[in-house]
C-alpha cells in the first residue's frame, strides 16, 4: 500500500505539508496524489473515531448485530436484497458472510426500542428475509483497529541515553 494511504489511515488530518516532509516529496505532489485517490474512490471519506461512551446521555446510541437469513432472488442473488437492506440509514454496516446465515447487518439507533422497531417493522417483514437473530452490543472494546479507551500515558522515563 502507498505510504500516503498508510499515514492517512492512521491520521486522517495529516496535512500535505507534513506528509511531504515525511516522504521527502513536494506538498504539491502529495496533494495531487491524494486528489487522485479521492477521485478514484480509494479514499472514500475522512471521519473522526468517536468514543460514544464518553458523550452525553442524549447522544448515546444502541447498536445491534443482526444475523439475517435470506431467500436469494433469481438472477441477482443476494445483492439486490442486500441493497434494499443497507440503503436504510439505520444500517451502519452490512456484510455477506458464509455460514449459518447470509447477511450480517449492523444497526444503530438512539435506544433499544428504535432498533427493535426497525427490526420488527422494516427488516423482518421484507419479502426475501426468512429470519433474523438480533444481538444487542453491550460494550465496545475495539473498533476498526482502534482500542476505545483513553490513550495510555508514556511510561518511559523522560530522559535516557
Amino acid at each position, binding site marked *: 500500500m502507498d505510504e500516503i494511504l498508510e499515514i492517512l489511515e492512521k491520521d486522517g488530518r495529516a496535512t500535505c505539508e507534513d506528509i511531504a*516532509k515525511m*516522504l*521527502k516529496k513536494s506538498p504539491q505532489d502529495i496533494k495531487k496524489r491524494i486528489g487522485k485517490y479521492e477521485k478514484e474512490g480509494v479514499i472514500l471519506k475522512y471521519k473522526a473515531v468517536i468514543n460514544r461512551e464518553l458523550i452525553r446521555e442524549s447522544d448515546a446510541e444502541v447498536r445491534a448485530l443482526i444475523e439475517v437469513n435470506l431467500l436469494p432472488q433469481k438472477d441477482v442473488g443476494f445483492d439486490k436484497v442486500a441493497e434494499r437492506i443497507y440503503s436504510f440509514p439505520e444500517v451502519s454496516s452490512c456484510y455477506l458472510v458464509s455460514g449459518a446465515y447470509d447477511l450480517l447487518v449492523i444497526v444503530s439507533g438512539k435506544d433499544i426500542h428504535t432498533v427493535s422497531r426497525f427490526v420488527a417493522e422494516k427488516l423482518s417483514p421484507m419479502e426475501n428475509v426468512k429470519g433474523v437473530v438480533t444481538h444487542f452490543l453491550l460494550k465496545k472494546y475495539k473498533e476498526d483497529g482502534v482500542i476505545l479507551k483513553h490513550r*495510555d500515558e508514556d511510561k*518511559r522515563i*523522560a*530522559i535516557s541515553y
Partner: protein
Amino acid sequence: MRKFVSETVEKIKPSGIRVFFDLVLGMKDVISLGVGEPDFITPWQIREAGITSLEQGFTSYTSNKGLYKLRLGLKRYLSRRYGLDYSADEEILITVGVSEAMDLALRAIIDPGDKVIVPQPNYVSYDSVTELAGGVPVYVDTRKNNFKLEPASLEKCIDRKVKAIILNYPANPTGVSYNRRELEAIKKVLLRHKIFCISDEIYAELSYDFEHTPFACLKGARANTLYLNGFSKSYAMTGWRVGYACGPQDIIAAMTKIHQYTIMCVPITSQMAACEALQEGRKSVDEMKREYKRRREFVYTRLNQMGCRCLKPQGAFYVFVSIANTGLNCLEFAKGLLTEQKVAVVPGTAFGGQYRDYVRISYAASLENLKEALSRMESFIKKHKVK
C-alpha cells in the same frame, strides 16, 4: 573514617549532566526528545508469549548461555538475515541487554593497561566500562569526517597496547552508519594490526538508506569480531533486557565464565518472549522501521528549515544537532529549552567532552509531539540566535 568505596570506582568520572537529567525528571508536562528507547510498546503477541510462559509455570533458571530454543532461533535469524553462521552451542550467549554483553566482552578481553579504541561521540558506557575492566580508552574524534571513523585517523592512534575497538553502527548519538565499502576499509586496518572488534549493532534493524552489513560478515573478520545485538530497539523490548553476543568460541566461552558467576542467566520470561519475537515479530519490526523512517525525514527537513546544522541520520532514531549558532553551550541550551519551552534534549557532552556545540534529539516520539517540540525549539533558537 575508613573509606569503603574502591579507588577504581572513585576514578570513574561522574556524568556531568546527571544534574540536568534530574531537572528533567522533576518537571511536569515536558515533551521529551531525550529518550533513548522506542516510544512503541512491545508488540502484543510478544507480551502475550511472556504472560503465557508465566501461566505455564516457566519460572526457573535457564542454562547459563540462555534457552537453547532462543539460541537456535538466533542462529537461524542471523543466517537468514545476514548469512552469518554461528553455532548455537558454542558461539552464542544470551545476555542482559547489550550493556551486559559489552561489559563481559571487555572483561573477557582486557588485561590491565590494554588499550581500547573508542570512536567519538560514543555511547555513554563504552569508556567507563573499559576503565572498570582495567583498560584504557583511546578516543578518536570523528567530527571532521562527518562523524564517521576514517581508516587514516584510526591508523594514527594504534600502538602495540591497542587490543580492541568498540564500533557502534548505526550509531547512538549520531545515527551514522557504514556501508560495506567503508567497513572494508576499517577492517583492513584492524586485521593488519590484529585488533579485536567489538561491534555494537543494536540498531541494525533500523538502517534506512542501505542494507545493514554486520562487521562479522566481512571476509576474514569473523575470527576477530564479536557481534552484539539485542531485542530492545528493533522489537521495542528495552525493559525485557535481552541481548546477545556472537563470536569466536574462545571469546564466548570466556564471557560465559563471567556471566555464569555474575548473572547466572537472563530472566526466563524475557527469553520466552524473545523467542516469540524471533518467530512472529518481523511484521512489527518492519512497521516500526517505516514509521521511524518517516519521522527521520520529517525531523531532518524541519531542522533544516530552522537553520540547524545536522547530518542526515542513516539509522537508529537520533539526530546530533549543532547548536553553534545560538552562542549557548549544550548544557545552557538544554536547560533553557527545558525551562522556557518544556522540551527535553540530551546535551552533546554526554557523548564526549568536546561536543559542547551539540545536542541529541531522539525521534522515538509521536509525530504530533515531534511537530510541537520542534516548533518550540524553533522559537527558542530564534530568540537566542547570535549569527
